[in-house]
């Protein structure tokens, strides 16, 4: 678990000489300095930025219409003039669909983690801060969700709700709430027992301001780092649900769904069929590397 940022001097011995109140700014300067030196993380951050930009600006970048089919161009191989990445099983331009596909794939991968972070943080703060029975009730409920392998829980909920982008986001959100709640709860419980919280309470601070000023600041770093490590899994799972026919619905361009519909073509035009997976791989890998780099730079241990 992370050291509470407000209560420790971080890193270099020089920190001991500066007054305590400037230490938060010193911390973020240190983080930025460490990140600048970490070339590998910067490379993957750049790669991720490119993926995002290509998805956002898809309508301006794409050479063709993502929905325009052409029976003549079905499964055109990679490198054909006019079709740099080939064409899919309905003759749609692969490059165009990859660019557009990033929009849904990124949304379906990232939004569940964002939702779950907000919900899990609130639940974890309540459980950790108030302890006792409230803690019991919330954490035991989370234990039940922990009793499912995450893939299975996502498939169970999405399978019952049926296909659709919203249903995928809902089911993945449910999957990620318990781990985030657990992390938040354990950090909050530890912070709550520290002297500086007790001191603040003694000076008359109410529960809300205690949470906002003293607990949240210390909880946020480890929780955000942990949440960032979930994005990679979320991207793979969201595309995986589409791959099973549970996420995005045809003819929407989405990487997992594209893999699914191209699966039958692997004996005809194998290398066109694997192209969407490259995008899922690059995105998930970048998020993993970025999360690792951030954890290192922020000196957060779990």
């Amino acid at each position, binding site marked *: 678990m992370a050291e509470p940022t407000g209560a420790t001097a971080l890193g270099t011995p020089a920190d001991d000489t500066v007054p305590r109140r400037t230490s938060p700014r010193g911390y973020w300067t240190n983080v930025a300095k460490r990140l600048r030196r970490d070339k590998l993380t910067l490379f993957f951050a750049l790669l991720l930025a490119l993926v995002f930009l290509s998805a956002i600006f898809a309508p301006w970048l794409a050479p063709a219409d993502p929905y325009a089919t052409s029976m003549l161009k079905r499964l055109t191989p990679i490198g054909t003039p006019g079709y740099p990445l080939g064409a899919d099983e309905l003759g749609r331009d692969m490059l165009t669909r990859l660019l557009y596909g990033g929009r849904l794939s990124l949304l379906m991968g990232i939004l569940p983690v964002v939702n779950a972070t907000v919900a899990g943080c609130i639940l974890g703060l309540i459980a950790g801060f108030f302890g006792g029975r409230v803690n019991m009730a919330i954490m*035991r*409920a989370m*234990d*039940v*969700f922990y*009793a*499912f*392998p*995450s*893939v*299975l829980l996502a*498939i*169970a*909920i999405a*399978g*019952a*709700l*049926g296909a659709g982008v919203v249903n995928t986001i809902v089911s993945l959100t449910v999957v990620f709430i318990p781990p985030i709640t657990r992390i938040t709860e354990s950090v909050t419980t530890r912070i709550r027992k520290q002297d500086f919280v007790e001191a603040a309470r003694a000076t008359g601070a109410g529960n809300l301001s205690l949470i906002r000023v003293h607990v949240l600041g210390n909880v946020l770093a480890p929780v955000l780092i942990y949440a960032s490590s979930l994005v*990679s899994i979320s991207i*793979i799972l969201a*595309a*995986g649900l589409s*791959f*099973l*026919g*549970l996420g995005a619905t045809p003819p929407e361009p989405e990487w997992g769904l594209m*893999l699914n519909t191209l*699966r039958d073509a*692997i*004996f005809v035009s*194998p*290398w066109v*069929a*694997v192209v969407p*997976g490259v995008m*899922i*791989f690059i995105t*998930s*890998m970048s998020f*993993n*590397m970025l999360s*690792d780099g951030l954890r290192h730079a922020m000196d957060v241990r779990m």
Partner: protein
Amino acid sequence: MTAYVIRRFLYAIPIALGVAVIIFSLVHIAPGDPLSALVPADAPSSVVERLRRDYGMDRPVPAQFVLWLGRTLSGDLGVSIATGRPVAGELTRAVANTLLLAVCASLIGFPLGILLGGVAGYFNGRAIDRIATATAITGVSVPHYWLGMLLVIVFSVELNLLPAMGMGPGGSSAWSWDWTHLRHLVLPAVTLSVIPMGIVTRTVRATVAEIMNEDFVEALRAKGMRESQVVRHVAKNAAPTALAVIGLQLGYLLGGSILVEVVFAWPGTGFMLNTAIIRRDLPLLQGTILVLSMFFVLVNLLVDILQTMLDPRMQRA
């Protein structure tokens, strides 16, 4: 110890009950009348009403849950809508096939992960550590269903070495331990082993690196112990953590094999789940998920007990 085992068993009961509640409610979060999934759309309303009474669906939801739980505990998982056969019967063979795949994937992934993670943690920061870490990150980042497709393209389509799908020649699902059948197992097992390999590597690496930094390692070396003996001490200390992550991953393999089974048309629980999803066969979906998650609860229980036996300091509620 005995008291702990009993306590841990008792604790698993409410968890299992909670799991049952979630699985029961799957049918109720599904859009539409739960009965509409059971009967064809053109069934006369008198038949629908009779079925509603027979299934107890005219009663309040808690009463329905108790009825369902009673049926489930007696081994009646309902009837598959698609095939009309009892779900429990359909599941038996599928569970065996999934177990076969999961165990083979474990036999590839776990030793590899322990080896890579151990070496990386021991040589913390050196080149070999970076290679092992990079392998592990790639392993956890790769969409395994896509990796499966890649392997099929390389080894089945291009090289024509291994079969692309099924678990036996001609799509038969009868298993026997000979090369014609084992050939079918290679690609799915390798594909499925990649994620646990990556996760085990990362956990073991972190644990070993942490132990290597502890004072007792320094002390062992200072008193002149041979390095091979030091390694033995480190391994012993890392074992409980390694075991915990392996146990969890074994459970994940059972549930996580669905995508791999779909790619390779492996006739296990995952393939069955996929069929249930496509045909919106809710009883089949419910039954499969129930069996798999109960397996997972059981595996977790065994891991906790084993872990405590290895390291009594870990005794938790």
